[in-house]
């Protein structure tokens, strides 16, 4: 009996959560009896009447990072403005979980998918599944290495990396040892920012990149990786981190080692914490991506695709240097 009771409790949990969700979503995740349009029985098989709201699924790599929270907020604002329903899924940086979530969004018959892949290769299976179901896919921030994607909305990361590299060259007077903290290996943002950075520094004779290590866009890893780099290379004069979380982690390591005068830190993304650190003079600069704009443009592009308008394959979102 206890065992039975246990499962009844599990069931109640589901029930309660379901109640929360449909209460919160207003028009409803369940087949919208509240809309009163009478389209309940026929919807799905026939062309949708104008009144029926479109649904867009947004699969985010992780919401444990302010950048993607901003991206989600931008997307949500754009969806609200356009009267479109947005379903957000958080993969917690687990590629297997993300594929399952996209499959579940496809099962829900969303009209379009915005995917922010945890990994550009791993997401291919999910993109192909969406292609099979004829649901248009738009990738945001990170791209997909396969499958058919209607558009890719992202910052011009190569240009941003180059802007950061050029600033570092200027700050250290064109000579000295430099370290690079890389993002999740294989992610296109990591590749592109690194590429731009190297375009700027590799040609400068006095600059040597003595350490390049992945810290996976993570603050705690940025801290430990930087500690290790400082052990091996105490005479570094500048650090370029592929995102601010790693830059802030590195900053902790640098300040703990008492080297904050010696080492200039440049990050990427301009999160609130990083902008504050720049204003306080602890960090040299950060490249401002505009995650809210990425989210907004993602949703707007999806709506254009749904309306049958033509969209560019790559929609670059501008960047700016905050210093």
């Amino acid at each position, binding site marked *: 009996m206890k065992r039975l009771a246990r499962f009844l409790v599990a*069931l109640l*949990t589901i029930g309660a959560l379901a109640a929360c969700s449909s209460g919160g979503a207003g028009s409803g995740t369940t087949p919208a009896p509240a809309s009163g349009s009478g389209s309940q029985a026929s919807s799905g098989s026939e062309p949708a009447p104008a009144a029926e709201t479109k649904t867009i699924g947004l699969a985010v790599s992780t919401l444990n990072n302010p950048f993607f929270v901003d991206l989600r907020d931008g997307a949500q604002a754009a969806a609200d403005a356009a009267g479109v329903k947005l379903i957000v899924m958080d993969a917690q940086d687990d590629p297997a979980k993300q594929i399952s979530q996209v499959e579940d969004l496809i099962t829900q018959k969303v009209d379009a998918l915005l995917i922010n892949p945890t990994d550009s290769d791993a997401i291919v299976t999910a993109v192909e599944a969406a292609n099979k179901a004829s649901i248009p896919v738009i990738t945001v921030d990170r791209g997909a290495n396969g499958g058919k994607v209607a558009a890719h909305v992202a910052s011009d990361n190569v240009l941003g990396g180059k802007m950061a590299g050029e600033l570092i060259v200027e700050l250290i007077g064109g000579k000295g040892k430099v370290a690079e903290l890389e993002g999740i290996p294989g992610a296109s943002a990591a590749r592109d920012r690194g590429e731009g950075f190297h375009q700027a520094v590799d040609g400068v004779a006095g600059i040597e990149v003595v350490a390049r290590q992945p810290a996976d866009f993570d603050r705690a890893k940025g801290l430990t990786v930087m500690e290790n780099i400082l052990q091996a290379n105490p005479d570094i004069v500048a650090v370029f981190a592929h995102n601010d979380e790693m830059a802030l982690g590195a900053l902790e390591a640098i300040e703990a080692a008492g080297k904050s005068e010696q080492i200039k830190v440049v990050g990427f993304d301009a999160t609130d914490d990083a902008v504050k650190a720049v204003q306080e003079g602890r960090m040299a600069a950060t490249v401002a991506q505009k995650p809210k704009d990425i989210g907004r443009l993602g949703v707007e592009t999806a709506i254009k695709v749904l309306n049958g308008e033509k969209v560019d394959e790559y929609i670059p979102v501008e960047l700016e240097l905050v210093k």
Partner: protein
Amino acid sequence: MQAKVHIKDRVRQMGPGLAVIIMGLALSLLSREFLTVSNLLNLLRQVSINAIIACGMTLVILTGGIDLSVGSVLALSSAVLAGLAAGGTPWPLALLAALALGAALGLFNGVIITRGKIAPFVATLGTMAIARGFTLVYTGGRPVTGLPSALRWLGTGYVGPIPAPIIIMVAVFAVVYLVLAHTPVGRFIYAVGSNEEAARFAGIPVARVTALTYVITGLASALAGAILTGRLNSAQPTAGSGFELDAIAAVVLGGTSLAGGQGSVLGTAIGALIIGILDNGLNLLGVSSFYQQVAQGAVILLAVLMDRRK
């Protein structure tokens, strides 16, 4: 009195199955998409990886042990599989090598537990770190890509209308079920878990039987790793983190006692299904991912609490 106990046992055995049916009914009412053939196949495919690992884990837990290394073993064998296959080794050979590696890591667990007399929790915690470390060394921390399409079939292919991972899962459960229910080895596993001393006096090779359960679990993890590799179109160095908890949860939800000696793989199949339905159902209902974690944690805690009060 006798009859009453009997009914109680019956209800206990049927509890998990009933829970699946009730959850299924509730979700069918709440979501139009839940009870469709395509979603059920989707659900089973999502469940397959955890179910296969949990199938092996059941044997380990039946002996009174635990295996925390499954996620890391999965990651290492997946990396080796992808590395060999992408490097030009014919895929059947690469697959065999990956499965052999999984079994070898299981044997390593089994030997240090039975010969080294180290508690399974600690021994497999060590293997968990070692295998994860080797995975990072082997991959350089980067995903391994460039797989031949035959390997992708394991994760994304179909036999008729049925996804390949489901067929592999059913085959694994069928084999393990038959071994447990109808062979001496199966009876030995239950005997070791019920009372190790008694089993030893009865002439059962306790050490070998125990080690065998870890070998099977290692093998199952490697097989699940091959499916995941196909599904992810790559081997991810961080793959499988936290999988041990999902697998243990499936086993416990399925009614297998953490103290050993009691339980079945059919229960585990249902336990894995419950976890899968929870994930899939909450997604379909559009519940925030943050609440989903709370729900999953709560269900696991409740299951373990009930197990202890039994």
